């Protein structure tokens, strides 16, 4: 079923997931600004309109609320729409639709209606996109019960998680770390650009497979501290751990909601130390929830305060992008700090 594997970038893996689902399920529609003929500003939908037809993959008006609202109506009808928001920064005009409608529909209707929609969107920083092409709003979705929030960190997961999202019965916000669309990024801006070729996670089956929502993965086993990360920051974390020399366990959450609480607590119970890493601004970010959960569930195992490494509490600052984004150095410093105690 999953077929032959081949090396794919993350953007190719996403394209492949959409292609597979369009072919498999006539109820899947793909739409958004510039996703039709053009194939999307990041090429995620390239070739899909030509292959599957004008009514399967098409452009929309520039109206994010309308895109999501129509997707909800299609979902309630019985389709499985996959809507693209061109940059996740531009999801905010649709925030009310997602929170007040998509997330509540099943509950308030006593299960009569639901919105099995998937909202894909390029997410996060690192491409010199400035304020409105760089933000990381996962906390704004995590707090909204009824929504699922997924952030993959590599091609294999991206395809498997996207297919699982499309097949899921709940609304899923699928945020794609755009900095790693074409290659991993360890946070060191000066270094040579890498591409996905040769990475084990870039070996992606051509066909249908899923990665379950709500399951984290241990990217690096370790015994002295636990690092929680997702998206681009998984790669930064790996570099930071290496830089620190600490034998840290790195967990890629992959799924913000549902959260794999067991994987997290099992690791911290073992290591007794925890550093949380995300791009988003720190205050009331998702790291706060992670820290609170770890503290509540592993208090007696903790040997040092849980540390958070995150974007500063400023708007996303164009020229200071690399000062703003947490890099391996900041993670290594935090690891060193938690090891002191």
């Amino acid at each position: 079923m999953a077929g032959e594997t081949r090396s794919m970038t993350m953007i190719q893996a996403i394209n492949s997931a959409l292609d597979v689902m369009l072919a498999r399920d006539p109820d899947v529609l793909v739409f958004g600004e510039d996703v039709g003929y053009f194939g999307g500003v990041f090429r995620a939908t390239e070739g899909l309109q030509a292959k599957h037809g004008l009514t399967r993959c098409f452009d929309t008006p520039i109206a994010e609320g309308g895109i999501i609202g129509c997707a909800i109506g299609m979902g309630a009808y019985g389709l499985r729409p996959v809507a693209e928001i061109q940059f996740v920064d531009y999801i905010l005009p649709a925030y009310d639709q997602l929170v007040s409608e998509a997330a509540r529909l099943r509950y308030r209707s006593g299960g009569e209606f639901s919105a099995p929609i998937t909202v894909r969107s390029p997410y996060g920083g690192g491409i010199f996109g400035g304020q409105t092409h760089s933000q990381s709003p996962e906390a704004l979705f995590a707090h909204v019960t009824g929504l699922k929030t997924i952030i993959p960190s590599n091609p294999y997961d991206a395809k498997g998680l996207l297919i699982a999202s499309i097949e899921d019965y709940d609304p899923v916000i699928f945020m794609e770390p755009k900095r790693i669309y074409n290659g991993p990024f360890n946070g060191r801006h000066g270094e040579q650009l890498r591409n996905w070729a040769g990475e084990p996670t870039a070996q992606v089956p051509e066909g249908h497979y899923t990665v379950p929502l709500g399951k984290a993965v241990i990217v690096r086993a370790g015994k002295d501290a636990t690092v929680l990360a997702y998206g681009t920051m998984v790669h930064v974390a790996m570099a930071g751990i290496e830089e620190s020399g600490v034998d840290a366990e790195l967990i890629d959450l992959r799924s913000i909601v549902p959260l794999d609480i067991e994987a997290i607590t099992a690791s911290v119970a073992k290591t007794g130390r925890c550093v949380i890493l995300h791009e988003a601004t720190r205050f009331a970010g998702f790291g706060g929830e992670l820290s609170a959960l770890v503290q509540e569930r592993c208090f007696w195992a903790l040997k040092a305060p849980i540390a958070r490494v995150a974007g500063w509490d400023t708007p996303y600052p164009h020229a200071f992008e690399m000062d703003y984004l947490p890099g391996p150095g900041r993670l290594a410093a935090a690891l060193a700090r938690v090891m002191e105690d």
Partner: protein
Amino acid sequence: MRNDRSFSLHIPEPSARPGGTPDFSHLHLEPAGAARRPVAETPGLEMRDMPYRFIRVLDEAHEAVGPWAPRIEPDMLLRGLRAMMLTRIFDDRLFRAHRQGKTSFYMKSTGEEAIPVAQSLLLGARDMCFPTYRVLGWLMARNYPLIDLVNQIFSNEADPLRGRQLPILYSARDYGFYSLSGNLGSRMSHAVGWAMASAYKGDDSLALAYVGDGTTAEGDFHEALTFASVYRAPVLLCITNNQWAISSFSGFAGAQEAPLASRAIGFGLPGLRVDGNDFLAVWAATQWAVERARANLGPTLIEFVTYRVAGHSTSDDPTKYRPGDEANHFPLGDPVERLKQHLIALGVWDEARHAALTEELDQAVRAAVKQGEAVGTLGESKPPVREMFEHVFATPDWRLIEQRRELGV
């Protein structure tokens, strides 16, 4: 350097406030039969006059006149009358139930019953209505069980929505009635999406959405119109212009500057302006729009001119912000009375039968309320508390499982 003429800020005001004399001349109505009826296939751009016309069928003598007069069997008219009367009686009784502390909230649709009732009867079982809180008539016309309404309003153990929703925010999929919510306007695009899905599937299910006059100001309204127009979705977009949005008159939605139906023009869509208190006009306009949609010509915007006779909800006293007798001055009369008189004029109805029907419906409502009371009213009875944790997701995650356990339910 300043120009010689400086600006001043204009704040719209209604024609009269409490103590003043109501005036509806700004509505620019036309007599029954006056408006032309283009063939349904007419291109949108060739119907740019329609929003300034006024589609009205029943004349002063209660006869159906003019090009819009629909052919409706008397039986169907009687079904309409019955559903309208039932709506009104139900509203009155449940409004009183609120005064008696049996429910936390209620909203009446008094004076606006013709719109949803006619449309509900006209549309098919597989069509889907995206309602506002003021179209109870839709459900009444389709014989939705009164007891289910009452139980929902009492939020009791038998509430079909399991205690999760404010009273009257029904959901009834099998009756073509989409899930209501408190947010204004946010479901209009769902109707468009539903219609697009139907069109994509080569289905024949069409969608009908309502918004109030006040709600037309929301950006959602515009986005729904844009998508409907661009994809030529088979959807009827209806504005129930009942002149008020809580305490704000329709001028705050822009209705003082142009008829709301004329919003259609900018999208190349037909915009009809219809007497919403005239069952036959509602029927005729809706039928025209359905015909057009079925010819794959896409959406129609219909403004129904009507009047909100009661307060906005149980939470406000309308005499605080508008003349107490304003309803009596509203030039389009009472939709129930007008249909009744038409049926009498047709010779298929009379006062005695009307009185008997009133009594019958009142009994039915009383019985339903009693039955609901037996289950329990607000605070006396509610669904099992574990219902709070159901249907958040298709299957609950650990948070919900743990929390339900913590609460011990």
